[in-house]
């Protein structure tokens, strides 16, 4: 399982599912200067950037991945803005070619003589921060399920889809357990769909990363998310190890009370797929213009 080669003729699907409810405008992890929605939008934009770069062959972007970015809050649907708005599932080459905006910035790089220089770089943005409305998690998971039902039917031998779900609170439209399990029951010949969950909080609380046992979770909602989180396959465990994250066979793809570094790692591990080296994007960009 989870060993199918990802090719243009046998691509895989990645779903980034985002809580965009009103509470996402609250401060993040005790830091009053930072909103959860701002940080999550930045991480998602970097993740999309990383996926594009991985598929770039010189001047061509090869469609190894199809990506959905689904938000839920006041509305449930695609979170892409700009030319891709309203599209559920987008080829990675279209992601590359149709960002909402390409911003200019500077990046610090080695000058080859032991020093550093700043060079101009361009970086794209596909989604803006959004925080509005309730938390219709079940409706959002149902949309993901519908997208993936079609995907696995059309790609029966592909590397199974991966769903990376980020939320800051409990569902406002019911218990997500049932639809979560329905998603995890979908499969290709290479294994079941992977559903990973990351919970973030406005408070500074002890984080729990990739647990293998739900008894470490005192919170009922945390246990619900644990139960609809897939086990981390071997490739993903290897990626976690490369990032210095403690995960072991039996660990679930689940983080509770994630801090900023945990969120970044959640996306890095979750998109490592076939064991590729995680792309460390939290680098040295210095200012945006």
């Amino acid at each position: 399982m989870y060993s199918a080669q990802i090719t243009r003729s046998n691509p895989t699907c990645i779903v980034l599912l985002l809580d965009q409810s009103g509470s996402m405008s609250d401060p993040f992890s005790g830091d009053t200067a930072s909103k959860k929605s701002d940080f999550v939008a930045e991480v998602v934009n970097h993740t999309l950037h990383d996926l594009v770069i991985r598929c770039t062959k010189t001047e061509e972007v090869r469609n190894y991945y199809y990506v959905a970015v689904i938000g839920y809050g006041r509305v449930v649907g695609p979170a892409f803005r700009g030319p891709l708005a309203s599209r559920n599932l987008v080829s990675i080459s279209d992601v590359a070619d149709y960002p909402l905006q390409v911003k200019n910035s500077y990046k610090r790089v080695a000058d080859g003589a032991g020093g550093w220089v700043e060079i101009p770089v361009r970086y794209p943005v596909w989604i803006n921060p959004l925080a509005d409305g309730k938390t219709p998690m079940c409706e959002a998971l149902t949309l993901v399920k519908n997208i993936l039902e079609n995907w696995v039917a059309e790609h029966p031998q592909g590397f199974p889809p991966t769903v990376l779900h980020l939320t800051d609170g409990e569902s406002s439209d019911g218990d997500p357990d049932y639809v979560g399990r329905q998603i995890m029951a979908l499969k290709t010949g290479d294994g079941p769909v992977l559903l990973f969950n990351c919970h973030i909080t406005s408070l500074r609380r002890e984080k729990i990363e990739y647990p293998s046992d739900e008894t470490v979770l005192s919170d009922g909602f945390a246990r619900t998310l644990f139960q609809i989180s897939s086990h981390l396959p071997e490739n993903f465990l290897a990626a976690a190890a490369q990032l210095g994250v403690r995960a072991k066979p039996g660990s679930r793809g689940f983080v509770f009370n994630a801090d900023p570094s945990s969120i970044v790692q959640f996306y890095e591990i979750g998109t490592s797929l076939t064991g590729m080296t995680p792309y460390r994007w939290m680098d040295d960009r210095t200012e945006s213009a």
Partner: protein
Amino acid sequence: MTSPKKRQFGKVSLRQFLHPKTGHAPAECEDAIAYNLSSHRFAIADGATEAFDARTWAEQLVTSWVLQEGCSSATEFWDFVAEQGLILSDSWSKLKLSWYAEEKARAGSFAAFVGVEIDVDAGSWQAIALGDSCLIQLRKNKIVKAFPISAAAEFNSTPILAPSNTGLQTDAALQIVSKTGDLENGDKLLLLSDAVAAWFFQIDENHDLDLLHRFTSLIDRGNEVSLANFFETERSAERLKDDDIAVLRVEVSRI
């Protein structure tokens, strides 16, 4: 004390074979081969699939190296790589690139390289390598020398490669290796990119003489279609990793 026996090799013959990954067009093959029969310099390079313009970089390294003189010490070779890298990045600067191509180009390109120069008068060779492309010297179809890798288990997925942006990868200079050897009549030098080199070492370690014999016979005959079929069969049997293949076989013999 006796003076070294002087050997003369009046004939240097070669066979070459390039083959892309399964399902890829020949133009998508990122391995490259070049040779210069006047100076008896031979080289292969294996462009890193993930890198920007890897095929161009691999081709530029081999074609430029075989036309040079020297470049067989680590210092000379590193200077050569840096110079070639500047030429390559200069060619990119003339292009109007998308944001993602620009990002890839910034990191530069990468390729494994192995090159060898034969001294037909002295009956010797001198080689230089950076990365996991290999030179294997065969005498009567047995391995006499192999470098920079000499066993199947030594290959890994993250070799240090020749970078086009040497400023970003200064540590790579420390991984350059050179080697020399003597030649006897009928010796063959095989230059192989990583996947086919790992396969070759594995079948040698398994003492699979039949497979070895079929491979060397096909190379000797130089029938590209038969060789392509042979390697596709090996890939299907999962003995050979599905990667680009470069094989350059040089044979020396007396007149």
